[in-house]
């Protein structure tokens, strides 16, 4: 499942971060990497971008960017 498909209030474990170049690097640097626990805090009023909590801080990602992050163990 992709991070962009998750609903508000769901948690999951990151399996793989795709995409390339700067975007991938940025996502990884913000701590969204394999094995990290993410929690979907909310979507913006216009459904894009989304806000998630990882390692205790809040990060926003566009839905298209979140679609590059594969997650597992969604709950």
């Amino acid at each position, binding site marked *: 499942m992709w991070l962009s498909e998750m609903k508000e209030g769901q948690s999951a474990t990151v399996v793989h*971060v795709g995409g390339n*170049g*700067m*975007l*991938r*690097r*940025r*996502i*990884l*640097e*913000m*701590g969204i*990497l*394999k094995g990290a626990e993410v929690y979907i*805090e*909310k*979507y*913006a*009023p*216009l*459904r*894009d*971008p989304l*806000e998630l909590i990882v*390692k*205790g*801080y*809040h*990060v*926003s*990602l*566009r839905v298209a*960017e979140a679609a590059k992050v594969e997650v597992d163990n969604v709950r």
Partner: protein
Amino acid sequence: MRWITSDRPFRMHPKNLTIALAGNPNSGKTTTFNNITGTRQKVGNWPGVTVAKKEGRVHKYGYDLKIIDLPGTYSLTPFSIEEIVARNYVLDERPDVVVDIIDASNLERSLYLATQLRELDCKVLFALNMADVARTRGMKIDADKLSQLLDVPVVFTVGNKNEGIEALLKQAVKLAETDTKTPKRRNVKYSKDIESAITRLQQFIEEKTDGTTPYNTRWTSIKLLEDDKIIKERILQSADKIGLEILQTSQALRKHLEQRFDDDPQIVMTDERYGFIAGIVKEIQTTSTKQRVDVSRNIDLVLTNRFIGFPIFLFFIWAMFQLTFTLGTYPMDWIDAGVGWLSATLAGLLPDNLFKALLVDGIIAGVGSVIVFLPNILILFFCIALFEDTGYMSRSAFLMDKIMHLIGLHGKSFIPMLMGFGCNVPAIMAARTLESEKDRILTILITPFMSCSAKLPVYIILTGAFFGTRAGTVIFAIYLLGITLSIITGRLFRSTLLRGVDAPFVMELPPYRFPMLKSLLIHMWDRSKLFLKKMGKVILIGSIIIWALSAFPRNVSYSVDYDSKMNSVITSYTAQLDTAAESAKPRIEKEKEAALFAVEKARQAEHAEKSYIGRIGKISAPLFAPLGIDWRGGVALLTGFVAKEIVVSTLGVLHAVGDKDASDALTNALRASGMTPLSALSMMVFVLLYLPCLASIAAIRRETGSYKWMSFSIAYSTTVAWIMAFIVYQGGILLGYS
């Protein structure tokens, strides 16, 4: 380790120490910097880029400490300007100590930058900032253990309470004084495969170059395995043929690692660094299960709420505008009155000569017309500082990103563009909040299409004269045209000139914080100072040029002998006054003044017509003719280059109407001059779009950091203005309007 001392064999001033502050955005780095340096700050730009550089000096412990505030970054990869600037500073300028401000409540992510600094082999000191926040979140950090694990001195600070700053400086000085070479211990460890690749490359480099590489060989090897563009270039520059060999070797090793891990080695190394950090965090941080009440999250539930998030956002923006342009009016009036008083006083004191004209009509009038915006700018920047310091700025970007992304822009572009309706100068400067240079340039290019408040008087005069009751609708349509063109321009440039991958919207939403007045004021003043300093120069020169063009040549040959006309007016009225009854005298006196005034205005109008700018206007008349604008309109538009408000006053001068109840007189004069509603509309469209005013241009030059973009902006907006006005005027004629 010859390279450390190679180009700095001895220190010239042993009593000077340079301390650089590094850290994540929102880590409290700037607050710490403000606490250390107070108001003794120098704000400028890093050479060649528009990233703000802050520098401060303090005298402590017998040293002159130069404190440098490095741009806030999450990493030291060479992907963004900020990161390149920060890294190059540490690499090339070699500060005596680098203080890494670590957000203790975000230990894991903060340590990512910290480990990279550690790898750089400079003298690093960690400041565990906001430890109080961490404590309330139930985290306990073992600083001694951290210090021991990474072999780095660690100090606790609470930036916003000004705690631990003394200890931090003391420790930094102590660290600078220790003569130990950087420790040989490897502090950040990778997996076996990566380590062996690093060692192989390192050995290769050391054998081949005899230690002449610009930087530490282990670090160089790591960077080469990460395919770091800048380091690759530098290796090639410093050891050309051998450099090529080194690059080939690293390429082979990279390929090997890529096969081994089935992923880019760079990514694998990021992964491992985080793994290494996770290990450290596990050892030094204990989190109690105490569940905290998260105020920030609760605030956010309201402020970015699906239903009321937007209304609240709009309210804040409205409030900002109200404050800026309503509250700002009062000091604006005072400054205006002050400038008026100054020019009147000087006019009275100085003898009538060229110098007086230059001083009063050129310099004071020109600079005065810009300085009146200072209150607006101060208030606006205060509001923006408030948005930024509380953390709301990133929420506004979060809310607006979807809409702005449709135009090819970033959520953060919204605020600058909106501010453009007030004044383009602070708007262009507000584009600084955008991290990506492309976004910044694009925002700067389209902001001038937001009709600024200085253009409003022009619309009011023209619509008042030609559109009567429909004036409001017409003005609204003009504003709408500006917005539409900015969207089209945005999309156009995004897919042509400024093409490229969109900057990722991977943005931290920091917890809301209560702003500190001191820091708000410093932020506000920093930006306003830039406005004053840099704008001052350009405005001064520009005003003088425009003045000179309209004041010279001094002696024109008039078609009418105005002096004798004046004399005849005076004689005829004197005769009338002599014979008139006492009661009629005041009336005649008034008539005389009006008649003299009319003659004087006619003279001024003819002088303006025959001055250089008038001649330029006449020469460029064919250019404006297809737009339905006569030479007077053309001249008015040219003078509008200094400031848009001047368009109205120039029209007044050229149509020989006085200052008193000018708008009515001007309205009549405009109607009489053969201007039609259609040509008035065409002129308004032109005013909306054509070249930004001098102050804006100075701001564009400054914020894009290049004359190229400045010239482009001028050329683009003026071309668009001409084409649109042409379409309006010629299209209108075709459709039968006139």
